[in-house]
């Protein structure tokens, strides 16, 4: 099970909950599930660094910004993975808005470029992703999300597609739990589940599990005035540990 390397999953907070990204609103999750952008109505910016298996060449740097635009919120994201000889860049512009009392939706246009050494060509692909979030009750949210629902026959370069569906519940004022199912082209279904617990004021503890590589995740988060710092570790059954750190500034 490889998952879809193009489907955006970032943020130390999200990785701490086992990459349960689409059901809990947050800065980084708004770029994994654009319908959640509708709940980010303040101007904010963030940076994230993720290091896979303690190998510097497998690091990912990500920066993003979200700003309100009337009833909608707009986001811009840029991500860079790899090293000069092998690099994958991703840029995206997203928009999310409420469609009714209990429904919100969002869409993101993505641009990918890959540089691979040797005889392989550079890859440049334009696609989009979209989703919808439903507040089934005050405490329960269900989300669906499609990444690249464009048949490859329309375009010459191949790009995997992904369908994700999940639900999250606020079990109490301080405890959230969520679960997601995800399937990508030529892949089996991945199930992810995770929780976030506000152990003390402005301090969060996170945990999660993903059937993808039987990965366990742990993380913590702390809010200092308008800056939130998150740290996380996640395991891989054979390759070791992935660590990540992120900073998010709520400017206005």
């Amino acid at each position: 099970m490889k998952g879809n390397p193009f489907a955006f999953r970032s943020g130390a907070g999200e990785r701490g909950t086992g990459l349960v990204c689409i059901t809990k609103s947050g800065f980084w999750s708004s770029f994994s599930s654009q319908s959640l952008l509708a709940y980010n109505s303040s101007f904010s910016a963030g940076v994230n660094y993720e290091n896979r298996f303690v190998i510097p060449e497998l690091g990912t740097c990500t920066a993003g910004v979200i700003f309100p635009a009337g009833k909608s919120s707009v986001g811009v994201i840029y991500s860079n993975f790899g090293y000069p000889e092998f690099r994958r860049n991703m840029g995206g512009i997203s928009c999310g808005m409420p469609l009714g009392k209990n429904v919100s939706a969002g869409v993101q246009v993505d641009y990918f470029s890959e540089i691979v050494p040797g005889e392989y060509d550079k890859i440049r692909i334009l696609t989009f992703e979209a989703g919808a979030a439903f507040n089934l009750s005050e405490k329960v949210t269900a989300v669906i999300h499609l990444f690249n629902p464009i048949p490859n026959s329309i375009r010459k370069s191949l790009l995997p597609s992904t369908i994700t569906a999940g639900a999250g519940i606020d079990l109490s004022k301080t405890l959230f739990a969520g679960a997601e199912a995800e399937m990508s082209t030529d892949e089996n279904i991945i199930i992810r589940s995770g929780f976030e617990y506000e152990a003390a004021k402005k301090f969060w503890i996170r945990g999660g599990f993903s059937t993808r590589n039987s990965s366990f995740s742990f993380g913590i988060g702390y809010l200092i005035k308008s800056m939130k710092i998150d740290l996380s570790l996640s395991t891989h059954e054979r390759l070791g540990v992935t660590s990540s750190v992120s900073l998010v500034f709520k400017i206005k």
Partner: protein
Amino acid sequence: MTFLYQKLIIIIAFSLLLYNVSFGQAESNTEIISNIAEELAAEDNDPEAAALYLEYLNDLIENPVKINLRDENDLSRLFFLSDFQVKSLADYIRRTGNVVSIYEIASVPGFDQHTVEMMSPFISLKENDAGSSDSLSVRNTLLTNLILKPGEKDTSYLGSPLKILAKYSIAAGRFSAGLTTEKDAGEKFFTGSPPFPEFLSAYTSYSGKGVIRKIILGDFSLRFGAGTSINTAMRTGIQLTAPGFMTIRDNLRPYTSTDENNFFRGAAADLAVKNAEVILFYSRNRIDATPVLSSDSVISSIMSIYKSGLHNTSSLLLKKDLLTETVYGMSLSYNFRFMRVGANWSETLLSIPLQRNADDPESIHDFEGNKNRLLSINYNTVSGRIMIYGEMTVNNFRYPAFVNGVTLKPSDRLSVNVLWRKYSNGFTAFNGSGPGNSSSSANEEGIAGNFSFEAAKHLFISAGYDITHYPWLKYRCSFPSMSRKGGIVLRYLPTEKLNFEFTYDYRYSMINNQKASGIAGIEGSESRTFKWLFRYAPDENSAFTTRISYKAAYPSGSRGMLLLQDVYYRFGRVPVTLWFRYCLFSTESWDSRLYTYENDLLYSFSIPALSGEGSRSYIMVKWDIGHFGEMRIKYSLTGITEKSGIESFNDEVKLQFRIWF
């Protein structure tokens, strides 16, 4: 033609000016209907079952049951209702007057909200009926379907790759008439001399309330009792998680379907005097068959009846209309206070005798000759909360078939069904199709049971199990064998907007294991399928469905899974409805293939078997053209990743026009 074009242009122009548009009935197919369709599609031994089932549903949408007429025969067209529910609803309307809202039905004993939602696309609360009113208002309906697979061009086929269906019907007072013509992909539209459309079917019908209930001239569909002797209508099979197994009723209807070999052509009359009812019919129809040629190339006998209706090659065209089938018979039934009893007799004469393959042990009990006589008796009785029903049929005074069942309703929240059937080796009913696991219904003995239970508020549980023995050899099984299947469905409907469903399906059968030369061995083939479904409809104009399926097949051990997302949206300001699906699937072999029901054009259906690694997506748009008609267009695309890593794609375009004038 020019006039038609002009009329079409005027209709489209007018519709563009219409702002005050009334939408048609809800286009919602409930999960139970999809489940049954997928179950039937997975039946290897009856490939036509799903097509007939969905065609029947389309017919119900086109001609909904007018429940306020209180006609139990008409109500029983809602095949998913048990006899209990049919009687209960008819009694309720007789006692309290017309139903004014479909939600009122949920308060009728034996009904719940879930059943009402399932019924809603197929019923009408209108009381005036073309068959019962004296109104002479004329209503014409014209439907045309065009289906094209752009990439597929096979030069060996006789005709164009276009699949064409056209239906026309007219109703005026108690009279109605209809015409259906169809051409499958690869077939010529006109064949024979003089040239006629590939398939042409027509009827005229009179419906009354007096002694003459119905008279049909032309093509008609007929069912007697449980259908073991005569049933050219839909065979529902044994759906283990559906509320009821079957009803014992006679039913005569005009034929509007496109199955080219399973209908009657002639005349039929349904007469009723007080509690007695008689149906008489005579049919002479030409059907397809595979001939046996003698040394001088003369047709000496028939090897088999060819049922697929496809004539897209020269060799298949030779089978067309080769056999003349003459069938006549009658059915008598009488309604006592607590019991209905019926008896029927029919004879089938074939113009060329049928000859079984003497070299094949599997067909040792098969029918031979050109005359088949069927006698049948049936009953059903209701006492309190118990209903008992049954039918016994014998063909040529030699081969019997038995069907007996009981339905218990210990409380309004619990319904229990048990059905036993036995079809002896050699039992033959060319136009019959009783409850069972295959359409041929011979060489089968089995018992099935199920229950439906409202376990708690909003929580519904259905489960069933079926065990069938095949005392003689059958297709792909050179031994006496058996099969088992079971299923559980949990439905949680916390609000009208939300639906959670979990389904488990288990199947076991025995097939040949041809690992070496010589006599085949036998092995068990087993599959377990799990399905999770979540449906959310924020309002009446939109719905979102997510589904995950997982299947494991043995002995191959292969696994299959899929995740799909459906979106249904009806625009508020323009009369346009949209369906979208995106599905990703991954199966390790054909054994673990998964079936997914799709929304489609009326009188067209799609339940693709998804196998391999790939995606399946479709988008369908319906445009309601005022009160004059509608147009649907569907584009579907299947992409498969080959083992070499190359992706191959198949796409299909379907177009439908329906016009009322």
